[in-house]
């Protein structure tokens, strides 16, 4: 192993700079967020792009952090669920809707769903059930059977009227 494989860089996450030191160049953003920076709200599900549990926003786009080389995100605005959350500990409308509709059981898929739904709703206010199904195709849930997740997202999108 070569020490050259390790690099240092700074990421801008939720508006704040985070120093990453001595990391392998090949580490993905999900890993760096969770295990180097302790931002574990972003979940690890598959690390190959299927489940969306790892969804974050990079420069305003919902993407899978597991397929993002962390070092390549230098200079980008990264938002994780920690930064998306209301900072006073309360729930925002989308999250409230998830809780109200019991759109979570084990909850492991939830932060990813919230992060991608947030962008989806922004781009599709007042969406229909069909649009939710099409637009939320990047997140898997094994517990709920999705019906309640659709309800939750639809209602949260309506509220924005």
């Amino acid at each position, binding site marked *: 192993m070569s020490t050259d494989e390790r690099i240092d860089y700074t990421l801008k996450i939720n508006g704040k700079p985070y120093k990453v030191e001595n990391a392998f160049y090949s580490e993905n953003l999900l890993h760096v967020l*969770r295990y180097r920076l302790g931002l574990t709200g972003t979940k690890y*599900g598959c690390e190959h792009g299927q489940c969306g549990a790892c969804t974050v926003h990079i420069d305003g786009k919902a993407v899978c952090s597991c397929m993002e080389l962390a070092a390549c995100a230098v200079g980008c605005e990264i938002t994780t669920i920690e930064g998306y*959350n209301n900072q006073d500990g309360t729930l925002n409308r989308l999250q409230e809707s998830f809780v109200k509709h019991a759109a979570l059981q*084990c909850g*492991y898929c939830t932060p990813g769903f919230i992060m991608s739904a947030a962008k989806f709703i922004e781009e599709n206010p007042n969406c229909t059930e069909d649009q939710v199904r099409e637009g939320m195709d990047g997140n*898997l*849930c094994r517990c709920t059977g999705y019906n309640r997740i659709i309800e939750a997202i639809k209602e949260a999108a309506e509220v924005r009227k």
Partner: protein
Amino acid sequence: MTSSQTTDPNVTGIGTSRQRPDAVAKARGEFEYATDLLEKDMLWGATRRSPHPYARIKKVNLNRAKEMPGVHAVLGAWDVPDNRFGAINNDQPVLVDDYARYVGEPIAIVAAEDPELARRAANAIEIEYEPLVPIIDPLDALAKGKIHRHVKYSFGDPTVVGEIQVEGEYFTARQDHSFMAPDAGMARPDGHGGVEIIGATQWVHADRFQIAASLGLPEEKVLVVNSGVGGAFGGRVSMTWQIHGALLAMHTNRPVKFLYSRKEAFHARYHRHPSRIWIRHHATKEGKLLKVEAKVLYEGGPYSHTSAAGIGNGCTLIQGPYNIPNADIEGWAVATNNGMCGPLRGFGVLQGVFACESNLDKLARKLNMDPAKLRAVNAIKRGDQWIFRQIQDRPTPVQEIIEKCSAMPLPPDLPSDEGKIHPVHLPGGIASPTGKKYIKRGIGFTSAVKNVCLSEGAPVNATAMITLRDGAAVIECAAAEVGQGFVTIACQIVQTVLGISEVRIERVDTSMPAAATTDGSQQTVTSGTAVQVAAQTLKERFLKFVAREHNLDVNTLDMKDNFVIDKTGKKFTSIAEAGMGLIFRATEKFSQRNTRPIDDMESNDPVHVTLGFSANRCVVDVDTELGLVKVVQMDVVQDVGRVVNPVQAHGQIEGGAVQGMGLGLMEHLKAEDGHLLNPDWRGYHIPTIVDAPTINSEFVSYPEPGYHFGWKGIAELPHVQAPASVLAALRNATGLELPMAPATPEYVANVLDDNEAMAMNVASGDKKRGPWKVPPPPPQTGPWVSDA
């Protein structure tokens, strides 16, 4: 579902849809799961696994890995104090010593400073193998006597012959749990020669027992803590990294974290037993069932694990929720080298129900009878006897369920104007080559039975402790929360019994007395009952105190709405004040009634503690030429006893139905020559939000005797019957037999030529015998000759 089914954080007590206590933390990503655990100074574990399905280990050299910088421990089989463990029998090595018996079996483990180093060190271990010929075909395993359990029994007059007979051979694939959070956790030295294991499990106490034994420690030296669990579905009954983590933590004297990749989890997990079942029903011309005969073959892994229980479930509940006076049943769980098998939601029952329901479909067709009617006519009733000699002595609303389900509204047809159909509603989804004129609608109807609680003599009990102080209660009960909602339900129970609103439940670990395993849909009826009994005792103690303090007759007092009240309902004083700052506590154990093994002819105990029932009507749209399917709707009616939390109960049904639909349509973990072909989510497909149908669920609720609040276990039934229901609907649309779940597009389109059919193996490894090529077994012998 209807949107009126919402949760509320302010409602209390049994029967309300109280919001989960962990909902807010989960929605904010602040709930801590096993994968999230981090600790200062922690090391990362990695596992070196067998690449061979069956091989003799000639040599293992750990030195190269040990010499790598940043590596703190490299351990092999000889480092395990007692290298045999198991859920029931100790027949499984913690780390392989002599023979590796499946691809992915752990051989050596590493702890290093970061995961990449650990991975590289594990790869650097040198292992010499002598590959041997694996058993990959369950029929071969049977012929060679590799049998974990053989079940054989008959009932009534097994020689009875019906006017009408239908038989078939049915198959279900190896299904993966595919819970969202892969196996992970932390092992930590406790500083006193013991070890703490924090991870995701369904039963902390069973884990502790196995870990302690392997480490050569007394159980007191091992603390198992359940962290946040990201789904379980039976999969977390089987231990994976836990003993490895404990060994490494004790060797390095540092916390060691394990985190499996998805692919590793596929190899390390114990999957649903693939099944191959021959079944024949005898009936009268009117459709009255007279006899069921079956040969049930489950493919277990190379080690016994829980296979014996699985085949027991299958060989009994293959009866379905029907009254059948005669039976002749034989079954085997056999050992192959295709990977481990263990519990998965609907353990052992799903396969039997699939065969039973599929064959009843055939019977209905033969009799030209409505499938729901056929089932209603044969519905088992209270007082009837099961083929396993158990009297059905509890409420049995099978006929009612069937009728209620049939009466639910059907979905409208696809709009005739093609332009109005959104592609998510089309078989195949977006860019599907289908169109209205290619689509046929099919409707399937099934009913099912599932045992609640572990069966056949397994002790089922739980202990709960409740503490009341200042009008608020804390529950300690070691029942694992895996997402199913026990944490909500336990609080609701205590709210109702003690008449208070503020109730909290503690995190689960082995310092508490044991509770039941989160298995067999039994937590509410077992651990929930323990909580109720403890709360009841606590209430008596508390009211006795209040009565004495205030010189009142205890019999006139009750607790309600946070007040002590008298007989007339008049509020006497708040519970908080009445307690005078003192601590009140009660601990109670609840045990379910005893059960007996199937073949115990002496005992008159039941085989199953109790049984639950459901009916499912499934509507599909099928492009029959291409085999593309859209499940439009599933209507489920389930016997749920008294409902503790309606939204959670509906949630269990919806989630279970979609998981079962996955096995019905797409989930098939394939193996070839003992190697898994699709061990990741690129290759193993679970339903997406586009695939999920609309699910309408309704309850039938009769209080179950034996439990103060009359509740019943519910979590598995929706999954158990969904594959059968989806396939019934597909048969209705296509007219094909479709003997196998999942019915992937090529099955539904019936495009299976000779060569390809061989690649499309059925039970994994069974390449030569696709279901479409198996001749029906000779009537006298059944499909296999057993040398057991």
